[in-house]
Structures are given as C-alpha cells and as structure tokens.
C-alpha cells in the first residue's frame, strides 16, 4: 500500500484484492472468457476491442500501469497478454488476453491507451510476429530491419542465412534535412560511444544545440536471453542466465526474479534463513549497481576517468569482494537456487560479518565524500537541476519504475508494495524525490544506497544470532521440476533499475514453454524522448546517464 494520498478505493478493488466479478461486469460483452493465472485473473477479449477494454480498465478501474506485454505462439493461435497493475498498489493485478488466429495474426494496438505499449508491441511483432493494427510505428526493434522471420515463433528456422545492412540512417525529419532554409542536423550517437553505457544507438536530430527528435535504436546486444531460457531446464540451467541481464551487477536481484516466479509456479517454499541471506545479497548488489550508476553518471557529466568514478569503483571493489566471499564469483553469482541458496555464509562466519560491517561503517564517510564531490558541487547542480524533466504522469504512461519513477514522485517499490523475501520484517524506507529531474534521480539512488546499508546491517544482525540448528538454506525441491501444464505466472521483483518481471508458461515438461522478461531498463529508456526533446544535446547525454540503463537488460 502506498503511504501517501490514499486514493478512494474504487468499486473494483476491495481490501482482499481485485473484485474480478465486478470488473467482468464493467467490461460486459467484451469478455469472451476468463483465464486464471497464478498472479491474477485474466479476461479473454476480441482482437479488435483492445483499446476499448484497456481504456475502461485504465479510466474506470484505475489500472494505470501496463507492466508488460507478452506475446506467444500456440499450435492453433497467437496470443498477446497485457499485464496491468496499479501504481498506487502493486498487488492489484489483472491480465488481458488477446488471442488471434494463426493465419491472420492482427490485433488492435494498445499504444493510444498506454504509451509504453508502443515499444512492447514492437518487440512482440519483432520476435513473435503479431501485427498490431493502428500502431504508430510498427517496425522491428531488437533485430535488424532486414531480418527474415520471427525467431520466437514456432516454425522459425534458425539455420537460415540472414543479411544485415550497414548503411547511413535517414533523417526522420526529412523535409528539413539538407534544406537550405533549415538548420536541423542528423547525428548518430553510438552504437560505439562512451556516453551510451554500452551499445546503444541514438538517432538524434538537432536544431543548433537543441534536440528536435531522438529515437533510441536498440538491439545491439540482443543475445536471445528468452530463447536460452526456453531451452533450459528450470532447476539448474536457467539460473546462470539472469546474472547476465543486468550485469551492473544486479545478479542476485535478477536471480531472485526468476526464483520468485518459479517458486510461485511450482509452489516451492523458501526457508526463512535463506530469505534473509537473499535479502542481504540483493541489497549488496543494489548498492554495487547504484555505485556504478553514480560513477558513470558523473563520468558523463564531468568528463574522463576522474576522481568520482575512481571512488565509486573503489567502493564497488569492496562490495564485489564481499559478494565474492558469499557466492564465489565477482559478478556472475549463480548463487540462488529454487527454494533457497546454494550454500551457507562462508566460514569463518565472524570474518564475513566483520568484513561487511567494516564496509558499512566506512559507508557514511564515503557517502559524505560523494555529497561533497557531487551533489553540493555547483557545476554538477547547474548541469542536472531542472534538466531532463520527467513529470509523474509521463513516467506512469511510459511504465517507468524504480529510481526513475521514484525521482518523479511516484511512490512505488515492490519491496514494500508486494513484499517478498524478508523485507517486510525489516526497518527501512522508500526513497522518493519530487524534483523529476536528473538531480533527483541521482539523489534517489544515493538515498537508496543508505537504505540498502540499513537493510544489510539488520540482516547481518539477524544472521549472526540465528540458532545453529535452524540454518536451513534450501527446501526440498524435486530433482527434475515439472510444473503442471498450462500454468501461467507473471511475477516481479524490485531490481536496481525497477520492476524486473518474469512471465512463464509451463507445458508439463522440464523447460518453460514461454519465458518472457519484463526489463525495467527497456521501459525506462523509452522515456528518453520525453525527457530530452527540446533540451540541449548535452542534457540529452546527462538524461541518458541518469536513466542508468544496462544494455544487456534493455536488449536481453
């Protein structure tokens, strides 16, 4: 539950949850049937009534957050699933299932209702092959525009040759381009550029120093994560992949997203002791990830490898060393297991506690250093205060989550709103800022580091006093996990960048039939146009840095 401005409870939501019968009567004749997913009920509707139904759910029932769009192909049909939630209360969920026939896969677009559907539907078109009628800009998003076939479709032949062009990009504002009366200039930023944090390509059109139009071109790191997960077994083979989505490293948080989804899917319990270890590990990762955000953001704003970057790296080294003691690896932990964790804390335990405590003790000094160097620095303030403004309404429209949403005053955090792990037993706060600008996004991250430290400290205290006979790290899980056929679940956790959701459908085998990753960076990046258009090009770079995207997670 959100702590501020309690919204008047609509008739469709009661204290127990969403009143699906009331929703069904709201939608009336639009509903063709109902499906039960593990996270929520879903309504099946006609493909030409998508906008109407989603409009009703958004305006009348208050589902203002389109979390994810999953597309998949069955033997007899294609299906798009819209996972809706409320920013005010993340546990209120509803699904909208839109089946379309295989010979004519055309579905109405949801982009006019939720702006975030624009990118999600482009991805669904690209990878699965559903066409969205009325979509403003239906072209491939992850794969090159000349790609043949839709790789996550059932009859895709992976061995077919493909041709990828390398050519000059065309100015989208072509009428003005190279026109003697106009000053607009087309400029490529990336895919190899120090400020894009990886292999992102921004097609920017400038009018003098100002950005007229910016179109993020992604897919330069699309390494088929969903396909990899779909051809791996639940129990052991999938777990290493989440580490490689958000490699900042958000490792344990990503692993947790997968673990949480499967634990719901196959009904697995996790011992409390393991939950505390998970919570501690995830928060250590969050700190590590935010340190990277901090360092590279300042790199974008101040220039080359300067003090702040080195300071942030210094603290990351310490965190990675702690995480290495815990998990055995610096970045790709592969530490979580379904129903627990791989092993207990390293022996001798006192040494591990002492090392972690040492870091936590040094942290306030380090944070003060960061504040001296960054937030109270006049140059930094001039560059970031009031630039890259993302109003709360826009943040919600684009499905922004995590620090990006919280810096725009949207009070949401899955750790509190949809509690998992050990978070609801601990004392901590959600960092929310109302500035909506680049500065606020940095402040939110810095405050979150402090909150994470608070959580880790409490976890350490708990673990230290945990009775020895009670240290169960793993519950009983079948050697080969085969969840019941046709069970569907969509579950999210609060990763460093926002809501990291996993949709999974089982088909009775040991491998998921569909594995869809809802990446927070993907949605956050789609707000870039909103933030940067009309601003100076230097602020475009600053805004991009403040989004803290990791391309591995954007492209998957």
């Amino acid at each position: 539950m959100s702590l501020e401005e309690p919204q008047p409870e609509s008739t469709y939501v009661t204290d127990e949850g969403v009143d699906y019968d009331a929703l069904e009567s709201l939608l009336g004749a639009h509903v063709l049937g109902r499906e039960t997913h593990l996270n929520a009920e879903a309504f099946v509707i006609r493909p030409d009534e998508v906008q109407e139904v989603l409009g009703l759910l958004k305006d009348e029932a208050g589902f203002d957050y389109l979390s994810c769009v999953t597309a998949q192909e069955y033997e007899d049909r294609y299906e798009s699933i819209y996972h809706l939630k409320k920013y005010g209360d993340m546990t209120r969920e509803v699904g909208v299932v839109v089946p379309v026939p295989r010979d004519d896969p055309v579905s109405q677009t949801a982009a006019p209702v939720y702006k975030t559907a624009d990118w999600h539907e482009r991805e669904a078109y690209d990878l699965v092959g559903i066409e969205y009628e009325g979509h403003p800009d239906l072209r491939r998003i992850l794969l090159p525009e000349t790609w043949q076939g839709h790789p996550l479709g059932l009859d895709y032949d992976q061995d077919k040759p493909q041709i990828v062009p390398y050519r000059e990009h065309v100015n989208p504002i072509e009428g003005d381009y190279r026109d003697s009366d106009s000053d607009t200039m087309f400029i490529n930023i990336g895919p190899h550029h120090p400020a894009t944090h990886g292999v992102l390509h921004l097609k920017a059109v400038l009018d003098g120093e100002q950005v007229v139009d910016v179109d993020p071109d992604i897919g330069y790191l699309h390494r088929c994560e969903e396909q990899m997960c779909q051809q791996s077994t639940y129990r052991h083979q999938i777990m290493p992949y989440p580490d490689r989505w958000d490699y900042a490293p958000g490792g344990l948080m990503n692993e947790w997203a997968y673990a949480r989804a499967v634990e719901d899917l196959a009904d697995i319990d996790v011992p409390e002791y393991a939950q505390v270890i998970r919570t501690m590990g995830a928060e250590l990762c969050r700190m590590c990830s935010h340190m990277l955000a901090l360092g590279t953001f300042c790199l974008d704003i101040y220039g080359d490898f300067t003090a702040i970057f080195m300071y942030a790296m210094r603290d990351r080294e310490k965190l990675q060393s702690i995480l290495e003691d815990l998990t055995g690896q610096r970045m790709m932990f592969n530490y979580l297991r379904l129903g627990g964790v791989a092993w207990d804390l390293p022996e001798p335990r006192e040494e591990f506690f002492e090392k972690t405590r040492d870091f936590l003790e040094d942290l306030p000094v380090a944070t003060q250093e960061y504040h001296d160097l960054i937030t109270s620095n006049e140059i930094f303030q001039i560059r970031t205060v009031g630039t890259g403004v993302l109003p709360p309404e826009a943040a919600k429209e684009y499905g922004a989550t995590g620090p990006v949403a919280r810096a725009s005053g949207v009070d949401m955090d899955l750790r509190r709103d949809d509690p998992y792990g050990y978070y609801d037993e601990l004392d901590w706060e959600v960092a929310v800022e109302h500035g909506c600008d680049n500065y606020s996004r940095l402040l939110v991250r810095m405050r979150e580091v402090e909150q994470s430290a608070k959580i880790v400290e409490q976890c350490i205290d708990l673990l230290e006093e945990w009775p020895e006979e009670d240290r169960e790290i793993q519950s009983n899980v079948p050697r080969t996990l085969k969840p019941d056929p046709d069970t569907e679940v969509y579950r999210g956790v609060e990763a460093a960048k926002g809501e990291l959701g996993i949709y999974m459908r089982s088909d009775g085998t040991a491998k998921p039939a569909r594995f869809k990753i809802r990446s927070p960076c993907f949605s956050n990046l789609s707000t870039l146009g909103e933030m940067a258009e009309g601003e100076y090009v230097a602020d475009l770079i600053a805004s991009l840095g403040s989004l803290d995207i990791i391309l591995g997670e954007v492209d998957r």
Partner: protein
Amino acid sequence: MSSEKSPRQSIIDGKPAQTKTRDARMGEGADNRFNSPLREAFGTSPFILTKFDQFLNWCRGSSMFMLQFGIACCSLEMMHTYAVKHDLDRFGSGVPRASPRQADTIIIPGTVVSKFAPRMKRVYDQMAEPKFVVNMGSCAISGGPFQEGYNVVKGAEEVIPVDIHVPGCPPRPEALVYGVVKLQERIANGESSPVVVKPYELEPFGDLEQDEVVEKLTEQLDDDDLVMRYNWADSP
C-alpha cells in the same frame, strides 16, 4: 680505426665512465633503481645497440592505447581493470581512448550479435595500423553461454582477427591484466599471428550471390548498400 678492436670492444676497454655526479646525487646507501639490468649488461656504455624495428616493437608493446569499447558484462570487469586496485596503467596500457583513430588495441568485452558485428568491423577498420585485438570472455571467443542463440555471432574471430583470448565469464581483472601483458610481450618480441576463422565481410549487396534470402530483400536494399551476410548453418 684499429682493425683488431671492434668499436664495441674499444668502448668496453676504455676509461671508466664519470659517475661522480650521479653518485653524489644518489647519496650514501643509495638504491640501485637507476642501474637497470640493461645498464648492467652494457657495463659503462651509455649506448644500446639494437635493430630499429626491434626498438619500435618494444615501444609499441610498452605503450598501448586501448579503445574505450564496452559491449556487455565483461566491460564492467574491464572498467575495474582500468580503475583503482587493478590499474592496468601500471603496465603502460591503461589509458582508454574514446576514438578508434587514437587507439591501437581493442578489447572485445562481450557478446557480438548480428546487428553489432558490422559496426564493430567498422570501428576496427577505423583504428590505425598496427592494431591488436584482445578477446575478453567466452562470448567473444565462441558465443559463450549464448552460442545457440539465433542472433549471436559465434565469436569475434568470425569478423576481425584476434591476437589474444582471455577465457572466463567474465574473466577476473587479474586475468585480463595477464592477457594484456602477454600481448605486450608478443608485440615487443615481434610475434603476432592473428587468425580469422571465417570472415564475415562487409560487401555491397549487389555482389551477393542471388538466392532466396537475397531476392526477398531486393526491394529493401540498394546494390551499393554494404551488408554482412551470416550463414548460420556453416558456423562452427
């Protein structure tokens, strides 16, 4: 010049060098920091005789400019290698340059996918000769954990020649340092034999052999558009 004595011998047999000033500066109990093994090997001679290209190779190996080139997970460990604690600069190769025209070594830190390979090839082409490539991590070596992906190039070697492979997923910074130092040694010794396994080249669309895939794209692409053709079935 006397015919019995070589010029070198005459220097060795000559008067001892004046070291008063140096000794005075170093003071008593001075360390031998300034007496390098080279200086000792040549005795008192202030000259080093060597071949010019050997000298140049040694210079190259001792001062490498890295391209600031991040692709995926490994680039995080690459950043750590550049930054405090590991500090690749100690070995004379830790200054990342943002422009390929100022760099002579490129580390490939991550998965190369179909959309990126032509761009990577172009970045490589833009680097000044002589240039060297370090493959960092399993993805750049073979596609790594993503090898079976529909979009993944099975190693950077299919696109550009590679000098050194550093295995790991990701390699630890120490491993990368070791790889870079090995490359420096090889360069200094003048050994370098990069291999291209199966080059995917950028070629004009019009030059491709006519087949089903090409026919489908004739409307979208012009004959002079540069394209890279992936024959996935032939990949190792």
